[in-house]
């Protein structure tokens, strides 16, 4: 689905590249978490994967990047609307301000693509359903909570049926309730087989939901594997990642000799249950 080869990118007038020698293959339907410290290059990777480099952000590009065989570096963003979609951190900035209701807001992209009205109505209804917004369809997008607005932003991108959905910290401006709404929506979408790339600092959620985690450091891929392989590793902290509470608790228990450690530390609640539960039964 996505193929990145020897991709190096430098922002205009930047002293050093923001992404260096990136090589990635992402399969259709995969849910990929992108993690890393501030400035590691997560947002830049998101912009690259959604075609904004070098069409919007100029600068120096080496290597290649394609989605479903289409070269992203050679296609204007506006032509990519059906291929890749990007959701930003701030829901407010993603509302056009030119449409009165959530329903019309969702139709905006389809209008720009010149889709017939019947198709538009059907697709908007589907996107409303997938994001749980059906009840709010006739409200003003401004008269919604942050979490609901972010779901509108997601819906207004998925209504274009992109092959890949890229999200750059979509919950960083939301409270826990809003963040949960967004994550549940993403869960529903991956259930439908969407390919999702999610840059996120909330590792607990990534650990529980992503198929694969890519950790960036200084613009390079520093680790790439299952959530457990990447996030439970002792080197995760060197990447500027805060281990999940399950990892921390298990590590503490192991160093204090409460449980005997063998194999990887847990990163999710289920893994922790197994980690602690299994050992206790052995000890008993």
């Amino acid at each position, binding site marked *: 689905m996505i193929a990145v080869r020897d991709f190096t990118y430098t922002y205009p007038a930047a002293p050093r590249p923001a992404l260096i020698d990136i090589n990635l293959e992402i399969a259709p339907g995969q849910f990929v978490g992108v993690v890393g410290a501030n400035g590691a290059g997560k947002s830049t990777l998101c*912009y690259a994967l*959604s075609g904004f480099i070098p069409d919007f952000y100029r600068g120096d590009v080496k290597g290649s990047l394609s989605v479903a065989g289409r070269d992203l570096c050679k296609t204007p963003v506006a032509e990519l609307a059906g291929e890749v979609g990007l959701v930003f951190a701030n829901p407010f*900035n993603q509302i056009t301000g030119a449409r*009165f209701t959530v*329903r019309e807001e969702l139709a905006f992209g389809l209008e*720009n693509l010149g889709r017939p009205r019947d198709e*538009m109505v059907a697709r908007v209804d589907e996107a409303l359903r997938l994001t749980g917004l059906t009840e709010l369809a006739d409200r003003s997008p*401004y008269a919604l909570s942050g979490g609901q607005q972010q779901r509108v932003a997601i819906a207004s*991108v998925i209504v274009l049926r992109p092959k890949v959905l890229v999200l750059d910290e979509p919950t960083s401006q939301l409270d826990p309730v809003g963040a949960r709404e967004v994550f549940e929506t993403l869960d529903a979408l991956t259930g439908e087989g969407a390919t999702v790339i999610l840059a996120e600092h909330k590792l607990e959620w990534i650990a529980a939901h992503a198929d694969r985690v890519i950790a960036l450091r200084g613009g390079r891929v520093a680790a790439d594997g299952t959530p457990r392989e990447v996030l439970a590793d002792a080197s995760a902290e060197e990447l500027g990642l805060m281990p999940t509470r399950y990892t921390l608790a298990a590590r503490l228990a192991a160093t204090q000799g409460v449980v005997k450690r063998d194999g990887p530390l847990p990163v999710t609640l289920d893994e922790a249950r197994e980690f602690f539960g299994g050992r206790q039964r052995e000890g008993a």
Partner: protein
Amino acid sequence: MTNAFSLYTPRASALHRLHPLTMLALVVFCLVAGLALPGPWGPYVVFLLLILPLAALGQVLPNLLSTAVKIALPFAISVFLIQGLFWTGGTPVVELGPLSLKREGLWFAAQSTGRVLTVVSSFLLLSLTTRPDALMIALDQRGAPKTLTYIVLATIQIAPRFQAKARTILDAQRARGLETEGSVGRRVAALLPLVVPLVLGSIIDIEERAMALDARAFSRSGPKTSLLTLRDTSAQRAGRWLLLLGMIAVVALGIWLRRAA
């Protein structure tokens, strides 16, 4: 449904049912008439005999009056004082010690106030009765340039964006102990930490907004469609042509009246 981002006031009125372009033509006619008819009385005639009855028809008269007065009154007061008092070499009407109000100055002030009033209330009439998105769609369908529709779009966005941002920044600065009450000097000084992040933040936002619009194919060339359907009638199309002829006539009338005077 009320909306945070525009002045549009939903009513079940005849004006609200008009096609946005008909409404636009009507308002441009008021504007042209107000500016073309000569002096001090011209704009007031348009305001009283055209704009106010139309606002009443659209059931938005109180909204229009209160906003128009709020905008035009400060202008009127300052222009009457400045032009009345400092008009050089005119005929004095009232003497106030060393100062005197000049007839020509007052004349001029009355005329410019009338013009401001017509311009402001024409725009209000349009914004109160016409959905901005419908107007944009209508312009788009007539092949208006993309930059124009973008400017309309961006302008509509500015108010709520600034409001929301100002509120956030104000809350943040207050939490850090910023004075928002107290003497005038203090409050002016307190504005600086509000205004600077507001402006800088909005510039950064513009980039993200442009990207978000592009991700939804806004800058794509080619025909567009729309979910909202606009109802146009042959009567309205004829009406728009008549209004165009009316504009030409009223400009001619204005020129003739000025010549005759």
